[in-house]
C-alpha cells in the first residue's frame, strides 16, 4: 500500500469519510433528476455566498452613526476586493428575493401546496418574507441619506397602528427617537446578521427536509429516483453558475451605489423603497392619509398593513382553497391578480418618478453629494467626527446649499464656478464669478451696471454709482471711449487683485503694472465715494480687500454697516443674525470658488 492509501485507510477507519463520499456519489434523487431541484440548489448556493461575503463584510463594518457610512466607504473604495464583495452581497440579495418570489409563484402554478405539502409551501412563503426582511435591515446599514430617509419613513409607518404604534416605533428605533441613531444601527445589524440570517438558513433547511420527507411519504414504491452524481449535480452546478453570472452582470453594470452620509438636517427628497416593495409604495400613494371617520386611524393603514397582511394570509390559505373544486384555478387567479397588480403599481410608480423633475433633480443632487464626499475622503481622510463633517465644511456643496437657501431668492449665481442658480427676475446682482476682472468690469460699464446682473433689480438702479459711471462715458469720441474703456479695465484688474481669487492668482501676479495704474485711476476717479486702503471718502461701500474672504464675510454679515451700505442698504438681510460665522464663511468661499478640487486624471 502506498502512503496515500494508508492515509486514506487511516482516515476512513476513524471518520468514515470515504464511505460517506461514496454514498454521496450514489445518492438517489427522489422524484427523479429535475431542474426544480436545481432551483433549490441555487437557493442554497445563494445562502452560502451571502454567508461568505457577509462574514468578510462584517469584519470591516462598524455599526455606529459616526462610522457606518465610513466603514462602507472603506469597503467600497479602499479595501482590495471590497467593492466586489459588497456588490455580490447586495445583488445576490436582490436576485434571491426575485428568485424566491418566482419560486413561490411556480409552486402555486404547479399546485405544489396540496396535501401533504402545506408546510413545504408555507416555508417557501416565509423564506420570501425573511429574505425581504433581510433586505430591509441590510438596506439601512450603509447609513447613507437614502437608507436613513427611507428607513425613517418605514419605521414611522408603525405609528399607523392603534395603541401600540408609538411603542413599536421606539422598539424599532431602539430608543426614544425621534431620529434613527447608533442604537437603530446596532439593532438592525444584529437582526440582519443574527436573527434573520439564521432564520433564513433554518427555514431553507426545514423547507428542503420537509420536501424530502413528503416525497418519501407520497410516492408509491418503487420510488422514482435518479442519480445525484453527476446527472443532478451538473444541473445544480449550472443553476448556481447562472445565478452567480446574473449577480456579477448586475455588479458590473450598475455597481452598488453608496450615497452621501446620512444627515439629520437634510432629508432625501427622492427616498424610495427597494424595487421589491415598490408595489406597496405605489398602492400607498393612491390612498389618502386622512382619518377614517373620526376613529383616529388613517386610511394608510390599509396599504401598509392590512392589504399586505391579508395578501400573505391568502397565500397561506391556498392549500385549503385547493380542496374546493375550482380551488386550484382560484389560487392561480389570486396569484395573477396580486402579481399583476403589484407589477402595474410598480411600473406606474417608477414611471411617475421618471417623469418627476423634482425627483430627478434630487437624485442628481444626491449623486453629486455622494461623489463629492468620496472625493474629499480620498484626499483628506475622514475626520473623527465622521464623513458628514467633510461635506458640512465643503464650500462647493454646503456653501452652495446655503447660498441656495439664503441668497438665491434675490441673487443669481451664473457664470462662476460650481453650482448655478438662475432667477427670472433677480432683485439683486448676479454673484457668479464675483471678483473676477470680467465681473468687476460690469460695475464700470454704463449698460451692464443697469442690467439685472448688477444693479438692474435694485434700489441703486438709478443711484449715484450708475449716474457717475454714465457721466464718465458721456459725450466721448471713439478714441476717448477706447481710452476710458482701457482705464476701466485697469481699475477692474486692480479690484480683482483685491479679491485675489485662488484660480486667478498667477494671472494677476503678471499684471502688476496695470494693477498699479488701476490704483492710481481709482484714487483720481472713485475715491470721492469709496475708501480703499485708508484713502478716500466713505459714502459708498468700503473696497479694501473687495471680494476677498474677509470682505465677503463682513458684507454678508452686516451689509448695513456704516462701511458698506449703511442706511441705504437695499433689503439685504443682516446675515450675522441668522447664520453662524462658519456658515457665512462657507458662502463666501463658495462665491470665491475656493474649495478642494481633485487633480484631473492624467491620461
Amino acid at each position, binding site marked *: 500500500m502506498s502512503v496515500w492509501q494508508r492515509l486514506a485507510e487511516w482516515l476512513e477507519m476513524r471518520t468514515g469519510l470515504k464511505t460517506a463520499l461514496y454514498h454521496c456519489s450514489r445518492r438517489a434523487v427522489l422524484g427523479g433528476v429535475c431542474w426544480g431541484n436545481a432551483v433549490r440548489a441555487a437557493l442554497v448556493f445563494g445562502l452560502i455566498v451571502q454567508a461568505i461575503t457577509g462574514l468578510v463584510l462584517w469584519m470591516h463594518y462598524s455599526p455606529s452613526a459616526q462610522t457606518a457610512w465610513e466603514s462602507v466607504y472603506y469597503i467600497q473604495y479602499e479595501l482590495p476586493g471590497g467593492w466586489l464583495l459588497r456588490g455580490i452581497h447586495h445583488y445576490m440579495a436582490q436576485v434571491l428575493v426575485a428568485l424566491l418570489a418566482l419560486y413561490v409563484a411556480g409552486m402555486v402554478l404547479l399546485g405544489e401546496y396540496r396535501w401533504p405539502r402545506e408546510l413545504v409551501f408555507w416555508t417557501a412563503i416565509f423564506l420570501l418574507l425573511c429574505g425581504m426582511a433581510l433586505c430591509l435591515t441590510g438596506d439601512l446599514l450603509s447609513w447613507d441619506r437614502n437608507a436613513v430617509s427611507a428607513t425613517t419613513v418605514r419605521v414611522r409607518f408603525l405609528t399607523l397602528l392603534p395603541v401600540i404604534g408609538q411603542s413599536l416605533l421606539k422598539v424599532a428605533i431602539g430608543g426614544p427617537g425621534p431620529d434613527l441613531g447608533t442604537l437603530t444601527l446596532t439593532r438592525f445589524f444584529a437582526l440582519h446578521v443574527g436573527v434573520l440570517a439564521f432564520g433564513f438558513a433554518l427555514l431553507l433547511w426545514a423547507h428542503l427536509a420537509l420536501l424530502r420527507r413528503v416525497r418519501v411519504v407520497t410516492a408509491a414504491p418503487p420510488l422514482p429516483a435518479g442519480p445525484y452524481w453527476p446527472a443532478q449535480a*451538473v444541473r445544480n452546478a449550472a443553476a448556481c453558475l447562472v445565478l452567480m453570472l446574473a449577480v456579477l452582470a448586475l455588479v458590473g453594470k450598475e455597481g452598488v451605489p453608496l450615497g452621501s452620509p446620512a444627515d439629520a438636517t437634510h432629508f432625501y427628497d427622492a427616498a424610495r423603497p427597494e424595487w421589491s416593495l415598490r408595489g406597496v409604495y405605489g398602492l400607498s400613494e393612491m390612498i389618502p392619509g386622512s382619518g377614517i371617520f373620526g376613529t383616529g386611524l388613517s386610511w394608510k393603514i390599509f396599504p401598509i398593513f392590512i392589504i399586505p397582511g391579508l395578501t400573505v394570509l391568502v397565500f397561506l390559505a391556498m392549500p385549503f382553497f385547493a380542496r374546493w373544486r375550482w380551488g386550484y384555478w382560484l389560487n392561480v387567479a389570486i396569484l395573477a391578480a396580486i402579481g399583476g397588480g403589484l407589477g402595474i403599481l410598480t411600473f406606474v410608480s417608477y414611471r411617475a418618478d421618471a417623469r418627476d423633475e423634482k425627483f430627478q433633480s434630487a437624485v442628481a443632487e444626491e449623486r453629486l453629494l455622494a461623489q463629492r464626499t468620496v472625493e474629499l475622503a480620498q484626499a483628506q481622510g475622514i475626520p473623527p467626527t465622521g464623513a458628514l463633517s467633510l461635506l458640512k465644511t465643503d464650500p462647493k456643496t454646503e456653501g452652495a446649499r446655503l447660498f441656495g437657501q439664503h441668497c438665491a431668492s434675490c441673487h443669481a449665481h451664473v457664470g462662476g464656478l460650481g453650482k448655478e442658480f438662475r432667477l427670472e427676475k433677480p432683485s439683486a446682482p448676479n454673484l457668479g464669478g464675483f471678483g473676477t476682472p470680467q465681473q468687476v468690469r460690469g460695475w464700470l460699464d454704463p449698460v451692464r451696471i443697469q442690467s439685472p446682473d448688477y444693479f438692474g433689480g435694485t434700489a441703486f438702479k438709478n443711484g449715484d454709482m450708475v449716474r457717475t459711471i454714465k457721466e464718465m462715458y458721456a459725450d466721448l469720441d471713439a478714441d476717448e471711449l477706447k481710452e476710458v474703456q482701457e482705464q476701466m479695465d485697469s481699475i477692474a484688474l486692480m479690484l480683482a487683485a483685491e479679491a485675489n481669487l485662488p484660480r486667478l492668482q498667477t494671472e494677476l501676479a503678471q499684471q502688476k503694472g496695470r494693477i498699479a495704474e488701476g490704483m492710481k485711476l481709482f484714487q483720481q476717479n472713485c475715491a470721492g465715494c469709496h475708501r480703499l486702503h485708508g484713502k478716500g471718502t466713505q459714502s459708498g461701500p468700503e473696497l479694501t480687500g473687495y471680494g476677498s474672504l474677509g470682505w465677503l464675510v463682513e458684507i454678508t454679515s452686516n451689509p448695513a454697516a456704516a462701511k458698506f451700505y449703511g442706511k441705504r442698504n437695499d433689503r439685504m438681510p443682516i446675515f450675522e443674525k441668522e447664520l453662524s460665522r462658519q456658515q457665512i464663511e462657507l458662502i463666501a468661499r463658495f462665491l470665491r470658488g475656493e474649495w478642494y478640487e481633485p487633480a484631473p486624471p492624467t491620461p
Partner: protein
Amino acid sequence: MVDEISLRPELPAEERRGFFKKLLALGAWIAAYLAPVGAAVRAFFAPARQKGQAAGDFTRVAPLDSLPEDGTPKKFPILAQRRDAWTVYPNEPIGQVFLRRVGKDQVVALHVKCPHMGCAISYVEEKQGDQVVKKFYCPCHKANFDLEGRRTDAVSESPRDMDTLDEVKIEDGFVYVRFQNFRTGTPTKEEEV
C-alpha cells in the same frame, strides 16, 4: 463495500459520458464560487500588503529645560497625525519615547517599546542597600536595561538593546525627534513598515 462497488451497474460508454458530466459539474461549481470566495480571500488577506505609517518629519517632543540635567530619563508621547482604518486624527499620540540629557545640548531618545515583543518599558529607581539604581525595566518578561538601553541580564529575553531614535535635534529650546517604529523579535534593528 468492495462488493458494492463491483456490483455497480455501469456501462463503459456511459461512464465516459458520466466523466464529462462530472467534470462539467465540478467546473461549473468551482466557477460559481470563484468570485465570492476570491473577493472574500482577497479582502481578508489585504492587510498583509498594507504599509503602516513610515517615519515622518521631525516632531516637537518637549522643551529641553524639562529634562533633568543629571541624565534621568523622562517619558514623552509623540504627537502626530494618526490614521486608524478610515479615520484621520489630526493630533494624537502615535508612540512614546524616553528622552535623556547626556550633555548640555545633547539628548538621547530611546523607543519605549521593548525590542522583544513590544511591551512598554518603564523607568525604575530601585533601592539596593544604600544605593539607588536607575534602570529601564520591561515588566512583561522581566528584561533589564541600563540607562544607555543596553541589556544587563546575563541571559536577556530581549534579542537586542533598546532601540535608539537616531535623528534627534534641538531647536529654539525644544527637542525634536524623527519618530519611527522597529520590528520586534529580531536581533537587528529594522524599521517596521
